[in-house]
């Protein structure tokens, strides 16, 4: 776990891609969940941030 955080601090690709993947997954879940309307409302911005982040961090070094 501590590897994960040092990876984040050193701007490594692996952990940051993980964060972006989780954000995208969360956004997709919020978009389609049947529980709360505000989840649906903020799903797009979550997915968008995740996707942009994914593109940016895939250029970090391994």
């Amino acid at each position, binding site marked *: 776990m501590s590897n994960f955080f040092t990876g984040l601090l050193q701007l490594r690709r692996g952990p940051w891609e993980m964060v972006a993947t989780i954000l995208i997954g969360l*956004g997709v879940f919020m*978009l*389609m*969940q049947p529980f709360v309307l505000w989840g649906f409302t903020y*799903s*797009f911005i979550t997915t*968008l941030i995740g996707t942009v982040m*994914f593109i940016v961090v895939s250029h970090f070094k391994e």
Partner: protein
Amino acid sequence: MSDTPVDRAATATPPRVARKIKGLSDRAIAWIFVGPTIFLLLAINIFPLIWTIKLSFTNFKANRIGREVKNIGFRNYERILTDSDIWLNMQATAHFLFWTIFFQVLIGFTLAYLINKKFKGNDLWTTIIVLPMMLSPAVVGNFWKFLYQPQIGLFNYVVAFFTGKDPSSFEMLGSVQLAPWSIVIVDTWMWTPFVMLICLAGLRSIPDYIYEAAEVDRASKLRQFFTITIPMVLPFLMLAVLFRGIENFKMFDLVVQLTGGGPGSTTELTSINLKREAFEKWRTGYASAYAIILFVTVFGLASIYVKALNKVKER
């Protein structure tokens, strides 16, 4: 991808060779070769995409050309993302996504596991099982509509045969309860072979010696299954799930032919809903914003997919 030192060494043309090459430089050739592809994709994919983004901030209607087009900022996005009807369409999509993936993984993995027993003639039967996924989804949807007809359709009759129900007592496509399941059944019929093929590739990628070593350690068959088979197939399974997820999130042709979104809007998946807004109500600006929301979602999932793809490729 090709980034090993060996590859790099091979790419760098030795100077001795370089001097002898006639004609264009490698760099020029590279651009001549890649150029047309990039140009085509820019013209037919990227330019329209940018146009959609621009339209999504307006109240443009494509069937009223003379009308003044106003820039209305994020209003389209606000309206879509607070619309509880669209939220319901998303839930219908979620139902479709979840259950198709659930059944396809369950049946697909089981089939792959059985085929991997290498019984005689498994190649032939695999090919037969694969056939449905190669067919045109629209035509498949159309003929399943025939199979689902109450009274005259084969499906009701088969169900009646096994359950003793009256074949005209239920309508798969006409009932609010059954319609969402009818599309799940057809999609599962069509795409289980896809999951099966990928699982099979995963199973075949496991080297025999791992099982042999486990046997030496006296691990039970069940234990081998959960500690070797499942973890080794998992990356492949992830790939299959992501791909089916993306494909079914944008599902259009099969379902539009089968139910047309009805009855009511019980099977109105997002793409069908979007088509209504864009090409029946002609709310182009609004539909563009809708399209961008779907696009970003698919693009996000696609980036995860490509990551998974490269992971499997490295094996």
